[in-house]
């Protein structure tokens, strides 16, 4: 069996809480974070979102940033979550500490705010000119924590966070890094809300993953990061879980839609199981991608059936709590997977009433306690990017 890479710290901020404890309490009490947009300025107040009800000003104050800082909202959320992860792991940041962050639109919130000003040649907020680079948001966070070594950004749409975790784990295994902070961040923007709206895949009610009557996703925002460390560097530190498997494949079917049989998802899960060196029967819980669009949930179900045939383990989509946080989703759900392992609980899939006619697929709808040794987490994105991660207990 594969040794894997140790997780020594986690940090998360989402619509269901400002830290890991708050997120966990929401998950076990079935408290979702879906509401009308209040902080995001948009005409689409009818579209429910998973919004974090903390202003940029408060976040900046909490991080003790100077007044003329150039943090995007994604950077603010990211730094907030990294702080928790670093504190928990008592991480000493040095030259051999890397930072890998996934983000889909990075600093789009500031780009859309200042686009017209910049078009008119106004230089007042020119410190945000480079915010359109996803790497800009990543560097702000790295700078804040004094990370000067390996810093990188992955932007594979909704699988970015999961791919960042995968790269971090691989770099530790390859001996390229001793410690690395990995995860993802994305904030709500007019750009993404209107983009998904133009694709007609946003629901005007709370999203219903895997329900026969699901009618689209809720967009969310959030950030989550894990501290990964090489085993020889642990020196007795508490280990929260192990990253034991990862797989990445491309659906190569359509720019946005998933293939009917979920080929990319199937291949990603298959590779993750192979890296972990376990069979599909070992998986105790699957935190699905489960966006609640017609297309994703049926394709993902098909892929799950192909991997697990009749022995499907417990399955749920926590996007019914947080909304779809895009690049952060894979990282948020990694944290939830680790919480599931630690507490031996399967978190419920909210808003589920009727199984899909085609598959009869039943997610877990009430908090369930049971021994859990392996959790699989799926993240799929536009461009056919599919990534699966497997987490296990320390020594499991």
């Amino acid at each position: 069996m594969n040794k894997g890479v140790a997780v020594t710290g986690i940090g998360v901020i989402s619509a269901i809480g400002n830290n890991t404890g708050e997120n966990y309490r929401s998950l076990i009490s079935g408290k979702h974070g879906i509401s009308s947009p209040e902080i995001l300025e948009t005409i689409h107040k009818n579209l429910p979102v998973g919004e974090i009800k903390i202003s940029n000003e408060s976040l900046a104050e909490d991080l003790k940033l100077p007044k003329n800082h150039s943090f995007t909202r994604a950077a603010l959320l990211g730094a907030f979550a990294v702080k928790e992860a670093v504190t928990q792991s008592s991480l000493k940041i040095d030259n051999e500490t890397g930072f890998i962050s996934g983000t889909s639109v990075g600093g789009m919130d500031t780009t859309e705010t200042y686009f017209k000003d910049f078009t008119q040649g106004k230089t007042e907020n020119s410190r945000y000119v480079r915010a359109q680079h996803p790497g800009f948001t990543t560097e702000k966070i790295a700078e804040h924590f004094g990370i000067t070594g390996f810093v990188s950004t992955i932007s594979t749409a909704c699988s970015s966070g999961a791919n960042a975790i995968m790269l971090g784990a691989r770099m530790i295994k390859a001996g390229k890094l001793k410690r690395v902070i990995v995860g993802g961040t994305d904030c709500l923007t007019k750009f993404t809300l209107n983009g998904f709206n133009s694709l007609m895949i946003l629901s005007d009610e709370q999203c219903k993953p895997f329900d026969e009557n699901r009618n689209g996703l809720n967009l969310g925002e959030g950030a989550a990061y894990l501290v990964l460390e090489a085993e020889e560097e642990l020196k007795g530190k508490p280990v929260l879980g192990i990253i034991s498997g990862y797989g990445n494949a491309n659906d190569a079917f359509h720019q946005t839609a998933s293939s009917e049989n979920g080929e990319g998802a199937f291949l990603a899960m298959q590779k993750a199981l192979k890296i972990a060196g376990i069979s599909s029967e070992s998986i105790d819980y699957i935190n699905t991608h489960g966006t609640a669009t017609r297309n994703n949930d049926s394709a993902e179900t098909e892929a799950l059936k192909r991997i697990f045939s009749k022995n499907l383990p417990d399955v749920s989509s926590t996007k019914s709590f947080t909304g779809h946080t895009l690049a952060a989703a894979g990282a948020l759900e990694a944290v939830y997977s680790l919480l599931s392992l630690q507490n031996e609980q399967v978190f419920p899939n909210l808003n589920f009433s009727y199984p899909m006619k085609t598959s009869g697929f039943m997610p877990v709808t009430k908090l369930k306690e049971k021994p859990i040794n392996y959790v699989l987490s799926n993240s799929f994105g536009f461009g056919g990017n599919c990534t699966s991660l497997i987490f296990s207990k320390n020594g499991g």
Partner: protein
Amino acid sequence: MTNLHTELKESIIEQLNLEDMDPADISNDEPLFGDGLGLDSIDALELIVLLEKDYGIKLTDPSQGKEIFVSIDRMATYIEENRTK
């Protein structure tokens, strides 16, 4: 062929970037999707916006498009029956 037919062909060519095509290249009964003109689900979403923008017809479910965007003939009939502008 009515003016609406030609108008539709022109806007489809423009909206969907069918650069090499001429309205005369699209026949009225030719299937727009699949084996005919070869449009796909992204084009369908573009056409939904075109219906709203040009003819004041608002579709809320993308699957409705499947019955309307069958051919230029079918689209023209639907527009005549439902247009608000």
